[in-house]
């Protein structure tokens, strides 16, 4: 094929946009493209023409962590406020209901925090378990929270949902050791469990604590602390593994 012939270039441009131009031919064409404005125009024309085919592709909302990762890899800050998942969370009635519920409990939790000495890392397990005991109401919630809403809330604290967490019956904010975190109640195959995700918190190693029939463990993560609390202490290892497999700090 005579590559300088206009009709041939036209077809090459079409096949380039089509995607059937592959390998060395594609790379050679891309080199030509960088040097030849006329060829660039041909490509633009083909993109407009064949792009019509994408009109038929239905849009699909990407999961919120994709944007979180883009922001992080580009080190963006100011744009954070403008993105949709945040807006949808703030506009969500169940979220506000759960926030209101969390607020009524805040005083009790705050009292628990100030009444405890220090803020050493060994207190995290105790604080998380104490929070679950204080907020027993959350365990009684029966309404299912849509998985998308859970993923969206977790994305705000830079935690990615890497698997199906199972039925979530409570989603709210919580304040533990002075850190604002996300509080979830999840029905795992090993029983009901509370998951508390605290960005900015730090523990050196996993640490356990039991009180009042509840057993919990706090786990170190890249961006904070994950707490897992259950009221069936024998199942804690399974519940811990179940949650660890499904949540990842970004």
């Amino acid at each position, binding site marked *: 094929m005579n590559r300088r012939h206009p009709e041939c270039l*036209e*077809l090459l441009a*079409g*096949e380039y*946009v*089509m*995607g*059937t131009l*592959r390998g060395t031919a594609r790379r050679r064409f891309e080199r030509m493209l960088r040097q030849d404005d006329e060829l*660039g125009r041909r*490509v*633009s*024309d*083909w*993109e*407009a*023409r*064949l*792009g*019509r*085919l*994408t*009109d*038929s*592709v*239905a*849009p*699909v*909302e*990407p*999961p919120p962590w*994709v*944007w979180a*990762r*883009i922001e992080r*890899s*580009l080190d*963006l*800050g*100011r*744009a*954070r*406020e*403008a*993105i*949709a998942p945040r807006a949808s969370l703030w506009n969500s009635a169940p979220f506000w209901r759960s926030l209101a519920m969390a607020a009524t409990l805040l005083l009790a939790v705050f009292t628990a925090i100030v009444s405890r000495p220090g803020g050493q890392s060994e207190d995290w397990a105790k604080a998380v378990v104490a929070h679950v005991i204080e907020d027993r109401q959350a365990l009684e919630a029966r309404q299912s929270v849509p998985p998308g809403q859970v993923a969206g809330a977790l994305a705000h604290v830079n935690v990615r949902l890497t698997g199906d967490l199972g039925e979530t019956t409570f989603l709210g904010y919580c304040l533990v050791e002075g850190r604002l975190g996300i509080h979830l109640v999840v029905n795992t195959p090993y029983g009901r469990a509370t998951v508390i995700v605290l960005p900015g918190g730090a523990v050196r190693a996993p640490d356990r604590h039991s009180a009042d029939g509840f057993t919990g463990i706090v786990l170190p993560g890249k961006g904070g602390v994950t707490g897992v609390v259950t009221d069936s202490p024998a199942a804690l290892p399974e519940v811990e593994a179940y949650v660890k497999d499904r949540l990842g700090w970004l």
Partner: protein
Amino acid sequence: MGPFGGDGDTDALLTACGQGDEAAFARLYRVTAPKLFGVLLRILRREDWAQEVLQEVYVTVWQHAGEYTASRGAAMAWLTRIARNRALDWWRRSRNEIADPDADLASIPDDAPHVETTLAADQDARRLQDCLARLGERQRRAVQMAYFEGLSHSELAARLEAPIGSVKTWIRRGLLALKECLGP
């Protein structure tokens, strides 16, 4: 509305990204990511891959937005070009590593409808549909599979059970026919 369903707003947002406007970038993502994610899902057929590539695409968009000028065409066309090229690159890198590229097909919600069923939205789309209808069954399938599934000539030949020479001819004739009926 331009041929990509985009509009002047998208062009302005992309231009603002080129000037380092982070809020414009967030808004551009919000407005355009669902469309590009749909296109990536259509090509890659795996949600995890489409997510990875979508991330790559917008990182590239932010880093190269300064090269976009509205005079070079609609922003959506520019974005779609980056997304498709990235997806094709990804597909080439990955397909040798997996035995059955269609294995995860069932996990993707089938909300990427077929051309035939959704194109009747407006007059432009009907023109395209008429145009595709005139191509003849095998040429039309070759064009659609090449575009949406990112298949090469040899892959098309295997899927359509036809000699590679015929496939190349169908694609070229298909392209020329599209050009003729869709205009310059």
